[in-house]
């Protein structure tokens, strides 16, 4: 198990036999459950639905309300939510993933990757690019998921959570049409994660 977390006895997917399911969930529930990602458990109501991401959002004015579709998502195993992400369109051609969080005991089992692939698969192919900001420690992993660092972008600062702890993040992008890896991950998602041990 990565990140030094112990796996609780009996919590392995292998013991579960249930398959992973993905659901769009209510934003209020989503922000409460994903808040630990930003150390915002004490100020959940301040988790905003959309963030601009240093100029990503190309919509402006009332388009922000009328044209941006914000989809908060969770992955469920045996009826228990174990991972969260959200996705929205930043233009008529591109998407942004915001927040990817897997409960510590389930990390490095392909859950994050498969949830992300599912999130992307919800959108028609004309949304050809997907952006995210990666914490530096995750860059290698997201590369394996098919993302690349956006040309000309270098690590920058990011204030995480209400207490303002700083992190370095860098913008990464996935080209949906060209990345074979995405198709593979997308197939995994659509097949409800067949790699999970039975």
């Amino acid at each position, binding site marked *: 198990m990565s990140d030094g977390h112990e796996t609780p006895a009996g919590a392995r997917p292998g013991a579960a036999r249930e398959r992973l399911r993905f659901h769009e969930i209510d*934003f*209020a529930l989503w*922000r409460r459950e994903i808040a630990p990602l930003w150390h915002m458990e004490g*100020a959940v*109501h*301040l988790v*905003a*639905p*959309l963030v*601009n991401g*240093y*100029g*990503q*959002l*190309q*919509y*402006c*004015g*009332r*388009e*922000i*309300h*009328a*044209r*941006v579709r914000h989809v908060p998502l969770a992955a469920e195993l045996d009826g228990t939510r174990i991972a969260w992400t959200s996705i929205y369109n*930043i*233009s*008529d*051609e*591109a998407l942004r993933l915001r927040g990817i969080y897997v409960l510590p005991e389930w990390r490095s089992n392909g859950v994050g990757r498969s949830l992300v692939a599912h999130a992307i698969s919800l959108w028609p192919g004309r*949304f*050809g*690019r997907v*952006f995210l900001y990666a914490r530096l420690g995750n860059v290698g992993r997201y590369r394996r998921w098919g993302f690349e660092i*956006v040309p*000309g*972008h*270098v*690590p*920058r*600062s990011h204030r995480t959570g209400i207490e303002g702890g*700083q992190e370095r993040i860098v*913008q990464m992008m996935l080209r949906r049409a060209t990345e074979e890896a995405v198709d593979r991950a997308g197939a995994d998602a659509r097949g409800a994660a067949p790699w999970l041990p039975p």
Partner: protein
Amino acid sequence: MSAATLPAALPPPEPAGRGPAFLFGFDGEAFASRRSPAQRYWTEYAPASRAHRGLAAEFALALVDAAGRLGRMEIAWAGGPVGLAAAALAPRLGLPARVLSLSIDGLGPPTPMTGLPARRIEARFEELEGFALGFARAAGCGNAWAALSAFAASHAQWPVLADHGEVRLLNHGIDERLGIVAAPASLALVDNEGFTAIDRWLGAERRPGEAQLLRRTPELVAAQLDSPSSRGWMADALAGGAPALRAWTNHAARGSMWRRAFPGLRHAEPRAAWPDPAFRARMQRLSLRMRRARPGCATQHFTPLHRLLPRLGLEVPPGLDEDARLYGRVEMPAAAGALEPGSSGAGEEAP
């Protein structure tokens, strides 16, 4: 201010019946107040219908337009360029106006000598504080300087012209904390939610007033963005390297924009009129208290410049739409759909 900076002949005011040049809203409601922290704040700029005539002329036109709506007006000066330029222009344009100036604990810019009748309000910081906390709760604002403008306006006895507003530009490509160019230039106009708090407060108080003179006409917005100072800022930001690092925001360019348009103006921005370090430290603490009194109202809306400039009939400099190439285009809707206005116009309190 010298008469030479004024246009010789003023163009006629815009025909009545044009829609608002500037809108703000939360989700589906325009000119409303925030009802929950999950609502999305936005601002929108109407397209220009003619070429702008330069900042000084467009400012004068907007002032005439505002005066036409307000009748006699009291210019509540908080030390900023809007109130100062308005006070200087009003007598030359024959507008019925007077100046209200503010001193707090004996500090504050002296009443501008513009030939207008003037009134001076002497207040204590504690009074400003009390007002600001109520203002934060009522209007959703965590910015003590906006509260200062509103505090000045709160003393007006006539319809008020608030000394408020700025056209703030930002390059997202700069990481100002690290002091590096972190990404290719990505330029936007920034509207903090707090910038329109004074509109919500006027609405809640049912006070006739103008809080967004700088956004009163699309052509005045265009004139600010097309001013040599703003254009110079864009060129620096797009140049990358050291010029871009110095041009994270257009703070300095705004000052030079006002000085060029109105060479007689003393102050470039409201804060410069209140230089006392202890006062400024108290203002900073007050902002913090305001944010605590009303959390969740500190959001920002960005209008990408590559979308705003063409809307205002302005040329897009090369390289400006790079982020559209990266992040994708937005198809313009055939016609903007109508939004529900807030039921009482403004001032509905969020829970």
